[in-house]
């Protein structure tokens, strides 16, 4: 049941006439999902650094006054 449908990597990439369509869809999928993953992780770490900076600022204020 499990057998490779393509003889070579080149054939896999070409996918007869439809390579550009198939690969652009999967490329787009990877881009969107990857982008979203990056975005949420970045937002998380960004939130942490912002909170840290906020506290540093508050600490600074308190020591001044």
């Amino acid at each position: 049941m499990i057998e490779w449908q393509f003889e070579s990597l080149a054939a896999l990439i070409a996918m007869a006439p439809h390579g550009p369509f198939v690969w652009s869809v999967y490329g787009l999928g990877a881009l969107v999902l990857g982008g979203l993953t990056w975005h949420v992780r970045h937002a998380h770490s960004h939130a942490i650094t912002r909170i840290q900076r906020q506290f540093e600022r508050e600490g600074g204020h308190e020591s001044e006054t």
Partner: protein
Amino acid sequence: MAWRWFHQWGSPRWFYERASRWQAWAGWIAVILLAVGTVWGLAIAPVDYQQGHSYRIIYLHVPVSFLAQALYLAMAIAAAVLLVWRMKLADVAMQSLAIVGFAFCVLALASGAIWGKPTWGTYWVWDARLTSMLILAFLYLGIIGLRSAMLDPNTAGKACAILALVGAINLPIIKYSVEWWNTLHQPASLTLTEKPAMPASMWVPLLINICGYYAAAAYLVFASMRGLVLHRERRAQWVRELVGAHD
């Protein structure tokens, strides 16, 4: 018992800590399932005798289309929870679900459009399913746009919740009317409905990918929610301890 469960879900801290584990699980499951399903779908599943290799787009298109709709439903439920119980976490969930859902919706539209070119010879037709997907994208966009335009974050959440609920009530009506509209005009008979019986080696990877994308969506939603929770609770003691700010 039920109340404690409810109470826990209302607690951002409890959620933040738990969701960390769920997120990890969902992430790994997604990676494994998507790797297996996609490789299988792209390279192992047999070629379709009618469409040729272009049908391999199905392994992304269909799961993503399912999710775009499922995530809207989840968002509407979150909206109802927010309006009825004023649970802050529901607001966070709505915000995350809207963004992830919109991304999936765009992906469904884009993959469908690209698939349309080799099969129908055109990127876009006003087919019922396509049209209601487009409108779903607009509904998502409306919710995201409203939130980003509102000045006060608390107000924004509830306004979006009202909009999401009104949209959810309307969604079945929209779907029904679009289908009726489409049959009324009898356009070029390009429909996605009739599917030939697939061999197992074709639908198994599809099933795997559907599960994989569900896991991926869960991962994205949890990760996004955790970031938002952290930001919203930035003044709470537990966040203070968590980020290790010298106090």
